[in-house]
């Protein structure tokens, strides 16, 4: 009987460490291996604290919204992804996105003039991703399965903003 008890005990002891991994969980230093994009945003002019633009976000659109309401609706359907560039008033940022595979029609830098990002009335376009150097000609980005695209770099201007394409 004691043999059976001993076997049971040691089996349970072994079970405990085998159940957990030795990592430390969430890791801010880990580079994602998931599909997505990485890049930089360079703010070309002096972004001071008295600027009307309170924050800049990198926003990825599956399709270019038809109007403001459509933009907000796309948020709620998960078709638009974004990341805030922090802290504000810096001149160069690195950003990183995990994205589902597919084609994204617009990768843009959205400046926000109020407190709330999803209030589209507060949005201004400070820059887009383009390979033609034409700030009115956004370049789509296509991500295939297990692909991480780097160097999706953009220039942003807080002084000379662009009209929203929707």
């Amino acid at each position, binding site marked *: 009987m004691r043999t059976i008890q001993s076997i049971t005990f040691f089996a349970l002891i072994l*079970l*405990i460490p085998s159940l*957990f991994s030795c990592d430390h969980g969430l890791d801010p230093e880990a580079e994602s291996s998931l599909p997505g994009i990485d890049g930089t945003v360079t703010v070309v002019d002096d972004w001071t604290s008295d600027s009307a633009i309170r924050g800049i976000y990198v926003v990825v659109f599956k399709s270019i919204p038809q109007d403001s309401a459509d933009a907000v609706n796309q948020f*709620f359907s998960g078709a638009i992804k974004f990341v805030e560039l922090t802290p504000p008033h810096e001149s160069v940022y690195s950003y990183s996105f995990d994205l589902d595979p597919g084609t994204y029609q617009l990768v843009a830098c959205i400046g926000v003039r109020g407190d709330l*990002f999803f209030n589209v*009335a507060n949005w201004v376009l400070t820059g887009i991703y383009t390979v033609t150097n034409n700030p009115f000609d956004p370049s789509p980005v296509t991500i295939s399965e297990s692909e991480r695209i780097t160097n999706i770099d953009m220039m942003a201007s807080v002084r000379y903003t662009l009209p929203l394409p929707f």
Partner: protein
Amino acid sequence: MRRYTFTYVCAAIIIQIFLLPAYVVAQGTISGTVIDGETRQPLPGANVYLQGTVIGSVTDTDGFFRIINVPDERMTLVVTMIGYGKFTQTDIRVPAGETRTFTIQLQPTVIETAPVVITATKTERSLRDIPTSVSVMQAMEIERRNIFSIDEALRTIPGVHFNLSQINIRGSSGYSHGAGSRVLLLVDGTPILSGDSGEITWELIPVDQIERVEVVKGAGSTLYGSSALGGVVNIITKELPDRSATAVRLQGGFYDKPYYSQWRWSERSRFKHSLHLSHGIRIGALQVAGSLGTLYDDSYRMNDSRRRIMGYLKSKYTLSPYQSLTLSGFFIDQTRHNFLYWKSFDNALEPFEEQVGEEVESLRIQSNIQYRHVFGSESFLTARISWYHSDWRDNIGVTGNASRSNVYGSEVQFNHAMSGSHFLVSGIDVSYQTVDSDIFGVRNGYVIAAYIQDEWSVVPPLRLTGGIRFDVTRLDTIDTFTNISPRAGVVYSVLPGLSLRASVGAGFRAPAAAEAFATTAASGLIVQPNPDLGAERSWSYEGGANINVTDWMNIDAAVFHNEFSDMIEPVITSIEPTGEIKAQFKNVVKARVRGFEAGLTVSLFDRTLLPRVAYTFIDGRDMNLDEPLKYRHKHMVVTGLLARYKTAWIEIDYRYHSKVENIDDELAFIIDKPDNQVPVHVVDISTGIGINIGGIPLNFSLSAKNVLQYHYVEFVANIQPIRQYVASLQVVL
């Protein structure tokens, strides 16, 4: 005339209270010591009572007990303690004025599989005799974990997980956005949910006064009404002492630094400490116990510190051997800073900058008066009135917010053992609530309910249970609605070591005032009231088995299937051209949660080593959207090992939760990387020893919590406590 009547009634009560002790003092006394039948050591914490009366005792640190006011008639003395066989001595008779002394030896059981529980049937039953799954956590298990709030210990119960302070039992709850709980919290059978938001405040519960915690899994509205949608947690407080005793408990600890240097926001160490003083006394027929405590927690996160003062008082007046009056209450006065979400994943332990300095002050008071009259070995009447007051204010926003609510409850319960092996539980439950809030308005509501349940021992191995409850609920301007909650169950003891169970039951949850009447606007999000909000409803089906494989191994397994309808969720109702978003709480979600749970408990080497492991599989689906339910873990494992040698012990707890499959997509609007989630792996290690210095018993323990320094979230953008070390010292004088 009415004034004279009132005066007469008051005088009669006062005379009864003050003259009865003189009456009862003339009766007999039973005293003695309870010891371990093998080691001959005294056993503190054993329950000693006379069957069919309200008089009893609990042994002190010397194993001593004393029962006074024993009537001069043939009585049955019963002694119970977890981990030991029940002791019964019949035909005891103590003539008036005399004392009989006993030395009672309790024989240890190899494995404790069937403790007595009360919550599932509103009467004391062996765990083996009830048709639903119940987990029990005893006082010693709570003390060993060196906790500051009871929710820390509940995380180790199979099938239970938390989304911040919101408890989930077998995936029933999800995250209800700070309004409404789908699990009902009781303290000694009295509901403790706030009148405004219907939430649980775990910090309110006096940890050092808990005798045990019972967690009933599955819908329990047949006996408890609203909020028992996914289960019931009942905190049973300790019995009152027979001799004067003072205890001091000091806890102190600190948080380690986060593993990643970029998350280190504070240069100094972050501390956490608490002090509790408690005292119990008996004066004739009056027993009183109280405690006062204070806590300060720096927290491991910025703007997350808290300080609180809490108190507890319980007194029992034995009017006669068959009648008692119990007054109890507790309060917490707390100030805490406000940490809502991380500022960014790169600064995961810091809140949004605009939140720094935000804090919430709250005062919560609960009080309860209970009268109990015993008519025989199992028949009794209990009448209870209660009051729960919640008052909070914050400095969030331009003007801040404030809310004050009261819940006044009353219940009369009658348990009656009938001839023909029937046992009846019936009662009437009436409550009234008021809310006065900046956000929810000035509201009131009431609940009137009646319930009845019959347990029928058809033949000794077969026990059937059937019950029904009828609730009438009114919440301010919302139309009055009625709810019928039936329940049926069966327990079949196939063999002495094998029992099978099955049950079906209904649950419901009336909307909280916070869900129906919230009117607030912040940062372009406007929350509007919904006067058409209705109740959530559920059906729970369960089948299970409890098997003693050997005298040192027990397995409990259950399959469950729960259907939920009209679950309340916040819904965006319109998006204005300005970008403003309007939202309401609505009855929208139809869900199904099914799965199974299996637990193994082992006792090795004469109870020196006690390993246990339990696994819960949960398949929760949103039937409207045909996707996984939000904030549920599909796989959950809790395992632990307790090793004991004389008065020293060491315990290791480990829990695993698979990664949550679905969250609110809308959170991406305001939070950086809300979907950054990982599976949960948490290991806690505690050790302790009991020593006696100069006749004074001391208990010292040391804990390392989250010893792997594993960073994870229970709810989006909220890193759970990082590694911390806690020491505690308890002295009983």
